[in-house]
């Protein structure tokens, strides 16, 4: 075995000098959350770096809804799931159809729609929230899950259409021509040729929309207000209403809430990184 030279050791040390602070910076808030989740209240509030008696009791309290702030935990969890999945499915349907129409069928005015969608992508979300709130009131959708689902679809689809259009522009035109020659109708072309070929991008976009809707706080907190209709992040925010909030339970619920998106992200990382970063910023 070759011994490392002094220079190599120096490089490695320099890299570690960057790597260790990066690791600490990244992990501290997450570790702190995890620490609270496994600490009894006294340990959590005593500023310990590891609890004297680690416990899973907090999780049991959350799962059994044994606290005032948690009395609707499961229904809120369920709300989050339903809204995220519906927004994901709806975005996927609308965006795939639009991208197919703009990119493959070259519908007249498609470019205009694409540019308008792109423009929407650049409206800061918190700015659109103000008029959106009023509009949902006008439509009579406030306090209805549909308001949040539709808001999420509105926010997710511009980017979805754009990424899908970029991806479908790369498919050869000959494919469509060959299929049409063989007598495929437009719908068959869509179903049997386009969708299967676009699968990786579709997975990326579906995941993107689901995560976006699952993570959304601002719109959820504006559009939904009844305890049995809100989503988990709004419920987490409501913990702050009291001065003596049970922070260890708040962090436990937050930890449970953060797990699914992290798991989904890592499970689909391969699609996400390829599909989203390539599309996010073209160099």
């Amino acid at each position, binding site marked *: 075995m070759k011994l490392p030279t002094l220079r190599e050791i120096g490089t490695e040390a320099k*890299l570690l000098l*960057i*790597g260790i602070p*990066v*690791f600490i910076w*990244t*992990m501290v*808030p997450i570790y*702190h*959350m995890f620490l*609270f989740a496994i600490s009894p209240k006294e340990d959590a*509030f*005593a*500023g310990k770096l590891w609890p004297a008696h680690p416990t899973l009791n907090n999780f049991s309290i959350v799962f059994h809804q044994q606290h005032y702030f948690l009395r609707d935990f499961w229904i809120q969890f369920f709300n989050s799931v339903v809204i995220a999945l519906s927004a994901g499915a709806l975005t996927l*349907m609308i*965006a795939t*159809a639009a991208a197919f*129409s703009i990119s493959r069928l070259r*519908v*007249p005015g498609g*470019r205009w*729609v*694409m*540019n308008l969608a*792109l423009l929407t992508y*650049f*409206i*800061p*979300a*918190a*700015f*659109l929230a*103000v*008029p959106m709130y*009023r*509009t949902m009131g006008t*439509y009579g959708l406030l306090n209805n899950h549909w308001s949040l689902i*539709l808001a999420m*679809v*509105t926010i997710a689809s511009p980017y979805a*259409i*754009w990424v899908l259009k970029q991806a479908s522009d790369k498919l050869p035109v000959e494919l469509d021509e060959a299929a049409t020659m063989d007598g495929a109708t437009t719908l068959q072309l869509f179903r049997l040729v386009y969708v299967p070929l676009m699968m990786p991008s579709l997975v990326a976009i579906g995941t993107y929309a689901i995560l976006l809707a*699952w*993570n959304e*706080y*601002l719109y959820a907190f*504006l559009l939904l207000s009844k305890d049995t209709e809100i989503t988990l*992040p709004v419920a987490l925010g409501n913990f*702050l209403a009291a001065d003596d909030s049970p922070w260890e339970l*708040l*962090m436990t619920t*937050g*930890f449970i*809430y*953060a797990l699914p*998106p*992290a798991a989904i992200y*890592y499970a689909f990382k391969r699609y996400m990184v390829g599909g989203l970063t390539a599309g996010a*910023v*073209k160099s």
Partner: protein
Amino acid sequence: MAITLSGDHAIPGPPLSARLTTPQVWGIVLLAPYILVFLAFVVYPVGYGLWLARHPASYVALWHDPIFARAAVNTLIFLVIGINIKMAIALFLSGFFAQQRTWIKWLSVLFILPWAVPSIPTILSVRFMLNPEWGVINQLIFKFTGEDGPNWLNDPTVALSMAIGVHIWKSLPFWTLILMTGRLAISHDLYEAAEVDGASWSQKFRYITWPSMQTLYVTCTLLSMIWTLGDFNSVYLLTGGGPADLTHVLATLGIRYLRLDQLSLAMASIVCALPFVLPLVYFMMKRLSR
């Protein structure tokens, strides 16, 4: 892929209805759902919002509201200082993560966590860490120095810096990842040639890395500025706009007015930001809709 803003329609000529083929009819049908969503949830709200913001009186009221002036300054600090620090760190770290080492690979998997997990629980976690009485930071300060730590979120400057810190914590991984893709696209031969010529680390950066990445870097910075204008969570969940409404940014201020049922003020405050947003948006549209 090659489309332009000016819309160079490939097919000029006779009225559309006369030339519509079956695929084009399908095209319209398939595009319709998005157009409906766009009309109902973008065009109508935006138009309605602008209509609400039409009274000059709203702007006079904003002008006399000290919270608005403070929020505007805070937003500028957030964007100009916060984003530039973030992007500089991202550029630096993109070089670090481009190194081929097993432990760096593993670190990069962890490094993406802040971006992969929702922001609410992690921001609240930071908020409690900064709690003057019970937070872990002040307890450690007390343990080691015997003195009480500062009341972090009670000082507007510190509180705003912390909000910027939380924002950086959350979105740094994303931009590092993007810049890293850009960095990996640079041909390795260039670096090898530079190595042979005895170029130093800084020369390699100055003459190879930066020239090939500057467009991407500027695009990312502008895009991040636009999105950060809409960053409600970092400020709202950490400081709630406090103390004494001194740490609001435009995103939280609009929502504050909305909660106080002053919708026209909320819209007017957003309209005030438009002169800054629109040039950025115009530039981004030109870059992205090629």
